[in-house]
Every structure is written in structure tokens, then in C-alpha cells.
């Protein structure tokens, strides 16, 4: 399995930050689904650099992506939903993440809590606010929408009851080919019903058992990947009529290497301390093939993974029409 020792390429220091910090997901020349979870905030080295030291990762796209999120929410408010019993969990998520950011970015951010009164400063946005935990009206548009203006991650909250995880709240504007509004209220197995193989391979049932056993305060992470045409963050089912057609034309597009991106989700799984709810954060990173190709080990691994990936997985990921073109381009470099 992935016991390969990762060695950073000696020329990597010359690469731009977007490449050096990219969470490249492939450990070898093949890829299969697995219960690939590991403790959070462990620095993960790659051939081009490293990623993963912080729970909430802030990068050069911070302000752009938050602006993009605001636009999506204005167009389609169904991307946020909080079932009434999840209010405590939302506040728990907000206070947990803001205090984690203040610890990780002390130069630009600070968080103070006195009882239920909190003060948050975010120098990247010239923002200073005071709010009261539990009082939804103390933040404009409420605590979840506010959290969505502070972090690039999509936010999903799962309630734990009857020995099952229930997706009962969230703010998801950058979904990779699924509909948050449709999935609200589903349990863990129902959510994963469309995914091929995972039932047969007991991956989802094992993952659920693992998540149910997490104790408050524990934090894990995993990566998942697909491909996206253009630097398009919102590839939800909602807007599929807009972006779906690109899948048919990209293989023959001479600009494919610039347009086609590897889309990697760094997903955090956090059992919240006070509500006991599970917080699932999805942080999306996009890197075009032209950048992937600048790291020889990445170019080769990704080229082989795309060529070898079984059809059912390629079909599910929506890359089946162009994965050969992408693989050929990568391997011909």
C-alpha cells in the first residue's frame, strides 16, 4: 500500500506556492477507494512541497473564493440549510473553527470568548465583530452564513442519533457533482448510495462505525479527487446544465492542459466538543494539468492513475469522456 517514501523534488523550491502547497492525492500509479483517513493537522510532504499543517487552510484564493460563495448563495439560497435541532451544533462549529484559526494565524486573527460573548478579528477582511453564542440574531445572516464568509471550506454538520450519522445542516457552494439541498436529512449510507463499489467493499459502513466512535475533540482528515474543466468552484448538480456540456468538448480542445484541473478535496472530520455533532469540512483545491506537469512524479502518477482507473469509477467521477486525452497528454510530456 502507500508506504512509498515521498521525496521532495530538488527543484521544487523554484515552483510557485500553488503547486508547492497542493495536496496531491496519489501515492502510486493506481487509485482505488479506501477508508483513507488520518489524523488532522499532520504535515503531509509531497514531491513538490507539503500541505496539511492547519485545520483551516487559507491560501491565495481566499478572498476570491469567498466572493464566489457569496454570489452562489445570492443566486441559490438552497445551498444553506439548518434543520432546527442543529442550532447548537452550528454555534459549536463556529466557535471551534474561529478559535482554531486564531491559533494558526495569530498575526492576522484573534478570538476571545468570555462566557457566551465572543470577539473575532480577521485582519484579512479588516473585520472585527462581537457576537453571542446561542443568539442567532447577533450575527448578520446567522452563525452558519457567517462562518461561510470566514473559511473557504464547505461546511456540513451531521447529527448522531440512533447509531447513525444524519446530514442535518450545512453550507455547500462548491459541491463536486452532488446536491446538498437534496441530501439534507439523509443518513450516511443514503448519502453514499450513488457511489459505486463502496457498499460492496464495506467502505461506507466501516467509515460510519469509525466516525461514530470518534470522541469530542478528535479531528481526522481524508482526501478525495475528481476533475473540473475551468477554475470552476461550483460544480453542484444544481448548475450541471451550465458546466456539464464542457465534458463533451474538452478532449478535443487544444487548451485542454490549461483548462482541465485536478480537483482535490481535503475533507476534515471533526467531532465537535459541546454538541457532539460531526463537522465535515470540504476544502476544494484546483490545479491545471499544466501545473501538474511541472512536477515529474505527479505527471507520471496522475497519467497512470487516469489510464488505469476502472470504467465504473471514471463514469461516476464524470471524467470518462476525457480521461484518456488527459492521461495521454500527461504521459507524453
Amino acid at each position, binding site marked *: 500500500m502507500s508506504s512509498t517514501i515521498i521525496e521532495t523534488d530538488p527543484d521544487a523550491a523554484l515552483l510557485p506556492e500553488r503547486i508547492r502547497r497542493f495536496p496531491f492525492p496519489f501515492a502510486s500509479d493506481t487509485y482505488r477507494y479506501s477508508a483513507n483517513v488520518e489524523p488532522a493537522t499532520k504535515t503531509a510532504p509531497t514531491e513538490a512541497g507539503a500541505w496539511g499543517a492547519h485545520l483551516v487552510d487559507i491560501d491565495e484564493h481566499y478572498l476570491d473564493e469567498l466572493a464566489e460563495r457569496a454570489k452562489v448563495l445570492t443566486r441559490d439560497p438552497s445551498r444553506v440549510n439548518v434543520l432546527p435541532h442543529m442550532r447548537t451544533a452550528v454555534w459549536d462549529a463556529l466557535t471551534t473553527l474561529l478559535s482554531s484559526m486564531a491559533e494558526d494565524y495569530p498575526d492576522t486573527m484573534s478570538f476571545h470568548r468570555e462566557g457566551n460573548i465572543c470577539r473575532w478579528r480577521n485582519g484579512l477582511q479588516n473585520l472585527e465583530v462581537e457576537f453571542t453564542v446561542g443568539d442567532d440574531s447577533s450575527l448578520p445572516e446567522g452563525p452558519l452564513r457567517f462562518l461561510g464568509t470566514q473559511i473557504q471550506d464547505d461546511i456540513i454538520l451531521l447529527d448522531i442519533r440512533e447509531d447513525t450519522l444524519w446530514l442535518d445542516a450545512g453550507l455547500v457552494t462548491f459541491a463536486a457533482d452532488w446536491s446538498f439541498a437534496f441530501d439534507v*436529512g*439523509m443518513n450516511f449510507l443514503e448519502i453514499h*448510495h450513488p457511489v459505486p463499489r463502496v457498499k460492496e467493499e464495506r467502505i461506507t459502513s466501516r467509515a460510519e462505525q469509525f466516525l461514530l466512535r470518534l470522541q469530542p475533540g478528535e479531528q481526522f482528515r481524508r482526501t478525495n479527487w475528481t476533475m473540473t474543466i475551468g477554475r470552476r468552484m461550483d460544480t453542484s448538480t444544481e448548475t*450541471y*446544465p451550465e458546466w456539464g456540456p464542457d465534458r463533451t468538448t474538452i478532449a478535443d480542445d487544444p487548451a485542454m492542459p490549461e483548462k482541465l484541473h485536478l480537483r482535490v478535496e481535503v475533507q476534515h472530520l471533526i467531532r465537535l466538543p459541546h454538541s457532539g455533532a460531526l463537522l465535515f469540512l470540504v476544502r476544494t483545491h484546483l490545479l491545471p494539468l499544466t501545473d501538474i506537469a511541472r512536477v515529474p512524479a505527479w505527471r507520471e502518477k496522475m497519467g497512470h492513475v487516469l489510464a488505469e482507473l476502472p470504467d465504473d469509477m471514471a463514469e461516476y467521477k464524470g471524467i470518462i469522456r476525457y480521461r484518456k486525452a488527459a492521461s495521454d497528454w500527461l504521459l507524453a510530456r
Partner: protein
Amino acid sequence: MPPAAGNGLEPGFRGVICVSFGSSDDTALPDTNGQPRYDLHFESATAESLSELKSVLSGSRVGVRLILAGPPTDIRAAAAAAADCGLLGEEVTLLPQETGPRFVYCPHCLTTTVDEAAGTEVKCQGCATTLTIADHFSRRRGAYLGYSAHAEEAA
């Protein structure tokens, strides 16, 4: 069979509430094993009938069980209403009719379409997009997911 709605339920009821929808025959409901039983019948799961069901449920007490019979669309809407009242999955029995229309949710325009045919596609009643009906079902909405069927066909 006692007359259905409007008759009032004794306060503190902890027996079995049997609700049938449409043409479904009350006698198709199972025996309740000697438990006190209260029957309700509705034409369909409308806002009014669901609110009546909710008021019956909120007058009852822990220990109550619910049996829902009829077209899948109706009983799923009723099951979602029961969940809102605090009933748990194991306290609700669904007896769906074998056939019946399905609801299909369109994420492109957020409307839900009633699908009478049992095909793989349906035309969205909200935005007229032809939707592929996915094998992905939401209990809360009582609906299947639809998505644009021809987005990946060359223009």
C-alpha cells in the same frame, strides 16, 4: 370501522394510529394485536391533511405507533411529517401500494414533479428540462433526484 377525521382522539392516546390514503382499503391495514387503534383516512397528503395528522400526533403520548398505507408519495410525505413530530423510524410502519406515482426533485429549478410513468426520464414541471431519474432517494422530501438528461450531449 370508526369514522375517520374530525372525530377527535382521546387525549394521551398510546395505541396505534392507522392512516390510509387514496383508494387504499382500510381493511388492508394489519391487525394491531389488541392495541387500541385509531383510524384516519385522507384522499391525499395535502397541507391540510398533514397538519391534521400532526395535530393528532401531538395529542398522543410516547408509546404510540403509526401505520401509513397508500400511494408511496402520500405515505412518505406523512412519514416526514411524523418525523417532525418526534416519531422515530422504528415507530412508523410504511405500507406502500405496489404501484403509484413518484416524486422527482429538480435541483436546477428546485421544484418537485409528479412522475406517473415508471420510466427513467421525466420532464420537469418547473423548468421543462428533461430529467434523468437517479437511484437516489430522500426520505425527507419523499422524492428521487433528477438531473438534466442531455447536458452532456454535443450541442
